[in-house]
């Protein structure tokens, strides 16, 4: 009798494809709203007319409107979608890897490692041999952030996941230590930076989607896109990993390979997102958690849906960030933290009674 409500709740899980369709619709609606919101108003009708003008031949927008749409709002939208999807998928991957719903690149120090990589690229990038500098080009900051995030994740797995079990306390404490180390190193680099580098650093550290441009997106896409495409391939392995590492091996999963790939994908997605948008927290916690509540923990639906909801959430948060205090702009990290930190506390409260916390 006691179990009856639980039975009902999980039996009423919506069909995964239905949720995906709903998320796609939501993404389109929020995107149109976001494109239309700002100092120069563009109604949804005009936006749709503009996007279909190639087929209808009608000149829908004034040159000024076209500039606002194609050079400011669309890149910003695309960057929000990309960064939000990357952060949410990185969160879901990391939670699967550590078997813990509180693992998030921003909280366990991977974001700080990626930040250190980006700052090092700005300050020390000039010292690179010219050949190497030419090779990385505009990709230097995202690649450095990816490497920084990757190293942080590797250290984290060694410290926190000994013997296949991850105690959440160890994980969070290791994250604090990693964040402190990365923060100190970032401080030293900032101290030795020259005036021009300080200007670059300031712009970079403001994060947000304000500096969005197609060029910036192009630097992060080669890291984020493979990570997003790889993640569904890890879904079955991550499901098995939820039972524990030996159990996953019993189920035919190549555990070490799965961990290596999940770490790489997490670092690539979270690192590149940090490189172009700065530290944006809690997307990686809130999005997978909400999806697990509605459609369950199966990574096969969780990972693609996380990309959709993460993108939508960040586009929405960006809309709030730039309209709430217009014409000034709130840093988007403040918006996501306001939305996400209470959810984090809520998960912590609910899990406090369980073992391992």
């Amino acid at each position, binding site marked *: 009798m006691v*179990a009856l409500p*639980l*039975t009902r709740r*999980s*039996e009423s899980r919506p069909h995964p494809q239905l949720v995906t369709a709903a998320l796609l619709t939501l993404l389109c609606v929020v995107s149109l709203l976001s494109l239309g919101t700002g100092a120069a108003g563009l109604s949804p009708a005009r936006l749709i007319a503009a996007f279909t003008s190639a087929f209808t031949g009608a000149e829908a927008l004034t040159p000024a409107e076209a500039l606002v749409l194609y050079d400011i709002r669309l890149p910003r939208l695309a960057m929000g979608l990309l960064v939000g999807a990357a952060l949410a998928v990185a969160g879901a991957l990391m939670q699967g890897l550590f*078997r*813990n*719903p509180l693992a998030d690149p921003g909280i366990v120090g991977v974001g700080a490692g990626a930040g250190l990589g980006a700052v090092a690229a700005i300050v020390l990038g000039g010292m690179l041999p010219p050949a190497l500098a030419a090779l990385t080009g505009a990709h230097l900051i995202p690649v450095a952030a990816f490497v920084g995030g990757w190293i942080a994740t590797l250290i984290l797995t060694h410290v926190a996941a000994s013997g296949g079990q991850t105690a959440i306390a160890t994980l969070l404490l290791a994250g604090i230590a990693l964040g402190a180390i990365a923060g100190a190193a970032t401080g030293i680099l900032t101290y030795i930076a020259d005036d021009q580098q300080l200007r670059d650093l300031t712009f970079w550290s403001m994060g947000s989607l304000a500096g969005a441009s197609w060029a910036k997106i192009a630097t992060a896409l080669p890291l984020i896109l493979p990570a997003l495409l790889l993640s569904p391939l890890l879904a*079955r392995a991550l*499901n*098995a*990993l*939820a*039972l*524990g590492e*030996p*159990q996953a*091996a*019993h*189920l*035919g*999963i*190549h*555990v070490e390979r799965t961990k290596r790939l999940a770490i790489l994908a997490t670092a690539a997605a979270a690192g590149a997102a940090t490189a172009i948008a700065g530290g944006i927290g809690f997307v990686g916690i809130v999005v997978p958690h909400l999806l*697990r509540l509605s459609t*369950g*923990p*199966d990574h096969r639906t969780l990972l693609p849906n996380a990309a959709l909801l993460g993108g939508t959430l960040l586009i929405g948060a960006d809309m709030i960030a730039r309209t709430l205090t217009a014409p000034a702009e709130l840093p988007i990290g403040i918006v996501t933290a306001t939305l996400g930190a209470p959810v984090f506390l809520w998960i912590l409260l609910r899990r406090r009674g369980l*073992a*391992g916390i």
Partner: protein
Amino acid sequence: MLNATDLTLVRDGRTILQGITLSARPGEVTAIIGPNGSGKTTLMAALTGDLAPVTGRVTLNGDDIAHLSPRHLAARRAVLAQETQVAFPFTVAEILQLGVEAGTGPADPALIPRLLAEVDLPDTANRPIHALSGGERQRIHLARTLAQARRPHNDHGPMWLFLDEPVSSLDIAHQLMVMRRARRFAAEGGGVVAVMHDLNLTAMTADHVVLLAEGGLLAAGPPEQVMTDRLLSRAYRCDIRTNRTPASGPYLLPQMAGAAE
């Protein structure tokens, strides 16, 4: 056939077992018994491929398990661990589905409901596994293992079922149910290797008993030969008297130790 030859097993720099040579036959239930700390679980880890032996090798149906990929190993053996903590609120059906996907061959849609009925937990398919009690979860994981080993015999020969203390948190009725199911799997041609704690249950259900003690293998053979007063008393370091019911194999009562003096 499962063959282990001259195994040396080391964990955290400590040698747990040395010179272990044993075999288990399909169609039989092989029980591994021994006192606490005698290395039962470590030996199980070596037989399932979790722990690489320092010396020696393990072959399953003729293949060295060290050379089999996880995927191929999963097609030849399924494992019930002593304890399994599920990290996220998967439903019972989702947990069993993991076993279905790990096994080989077609699985009919009735498999999951049938296995749930076999472990006496029908109608739990859509419940989150966290909502079940410890003993119920243990039976769900047994059902998952049986889903993976749904065919006692497949293209790779007999399927093997490794059970690490399968009845440790079960009541008497479910202990009997689980051991009966293991016997049935063996009767259908599969191989069963179980780490056992309960000596009476071992005497009742095992065809072959492996007794571990003092860092090695003390004896192996049919229950009548291994479960003797002398061997058990030496292995468990206490006075044990076995007895016989008229119709079946040996049984034992700890109380008899006191009565004998």
